[in-house]
């Protein structure tokens, strides 16, 4: 059975493709994306309070390394197989080394439905994983020597809406704890699925808008948009196993690795690598990879992680 939130995504996609007048007001989209980010952050924060701190530092470093590696990998494929100009390859690579909160939210919904637990620090890793690929992307496009406008980019990244809300939510959840949060749980936790459904309706519309550019830029981007997440998820699952995570956590890391950013990275790349064509990266990340991940990718990564667990019996750190 298809999850209703995915049916909402398909409704948005269909309406967009048929050029329906359906359109969420920008303020509504802003509000639901805020609620989603805060809900993910708060939930993580509450659980994080129960964790030992030392393990977190180690995992955070490993995951940042993974983000950089994925961006380098994607750059190699785009530059040498796809023969894309350097700036375009670097910009798209940054998108694929970073993460999509929307994909993560669908993953949360998927595992919650199946009552599969995953590590509480996942929202922290999600926030952390947004950043390294952006820096690698800028370095790949610019090299070390030239003016990098790092200050501007750092502000764009760290003070962007996504990071502020996600990390802010984590801190509030961590400081307040479950009892103090109880009065606001109806809004953030009980309504999570409804908010996600509305959000995915809009994502369907946004995705549909990318299809036109895909037709123009061709087959390579479509193939890349499907093959890259399959490769990245394998890396993510390997890292999850290496860190000794649970099955749910390992699969979740696979999902994070497979997802491609469409908010933080486009904004940062637009400022720091202006000569890269933003249409290309959005068409690939939103037009191909996002629908692939939410509709078929997540169950595949779950199956891959399960299989990896059966083979290895789960590795310790």
């Amino acid at each position, binding site marked *: 059975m298809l999850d209703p939130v995915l049916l909402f995504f398909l409704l948005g996609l269909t309406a967009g493709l048929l050029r329906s007048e359906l359109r969420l007001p*920008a303020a509504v989209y802003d509000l639901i994306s805020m609620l989603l980010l805060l809900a993910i952050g708060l939930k993580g924060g509450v659980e994080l309070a129960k964790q030992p701190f030392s393990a977190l530092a180690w995992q955070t470093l490993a995951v940042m390394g993974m983000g950089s590696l994925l961006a380098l990998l994607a750059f190699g494929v785009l530059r040498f197989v796809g023969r894309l100009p350097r700036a375009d390859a670097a910009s798209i690579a940054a998108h694929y080394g970073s993460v999509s909160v929307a994909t993560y939210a669908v993953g949360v919904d998927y595992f919650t439905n199946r009552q599969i637990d995953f590590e509480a620090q996942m929202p922290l890793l999600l926030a952390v994983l947004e950043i390294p690929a952006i820096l690698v992307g800028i370095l790949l496009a610019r090299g070390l020597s030239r003016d990098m406008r790092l200050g501007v980019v750092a502000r764009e990244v760290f003070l962007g809406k996504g990071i502020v809300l996600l990390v802010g939510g984590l801190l509030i959840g961590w400081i307040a704890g479950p009892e103090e949060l109880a009065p606001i749980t109806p809004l953030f936790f009980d309504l999570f699925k409804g908010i996600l459904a509305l959000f995915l309706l809009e994502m369907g519309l946004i995705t549909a808008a990318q299809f036109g550019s895909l037709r123009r830029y061709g087959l390579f981007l479509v193939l890349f948009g499907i093959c890259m997440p399959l490769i990245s998820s394998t890396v993510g699952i390997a890292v999850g196993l290496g860190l000794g995570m649970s099955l749910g956590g390992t699969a979740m890391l696979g999902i994070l690795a497979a997802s491609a950013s*469409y908010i933080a990275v486009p904004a940062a790349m637009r400022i720091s690598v*202006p000569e890269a064509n933003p249409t290309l990266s*959005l068409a690939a990340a939103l037009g191909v990879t996002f629908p692939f991940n939410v509709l078929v990718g997540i169950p595949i990564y779950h199956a891959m992680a399960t299989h990896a667990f059966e083979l290895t019996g789960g590795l310790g750190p």
Partner: protein
Amino acid sequence: MNSTTRKLLTVITESALERTLVEDIERLGAHGYTITDARGKGHRGLRSAAWDESGNIRIEVVCDDVTARAIADHLQARYYEHYGMILFVSEVAVLRPEKFG
């Protein structure tokens, strides 16, 4: 009515540029500016403003001749090549000229 003319500089561009443009405009001597969200279509395609990445902004600056020229020149040199941007200058009558340099 006692009025004097000033220049109205209007810039329509990608919302990603908002922060850097505001810095540029202030540095080049404008006393103030107004920004509104915008959507529309140009040679870079439809900008529906349905979400952040597809949004445009419209920046309006009322200032004297020299400042308008300086801002227009800087924006053309710095942003025209890689960003979606149009700008135009018109003449407007203002009632309190001292506000606009």
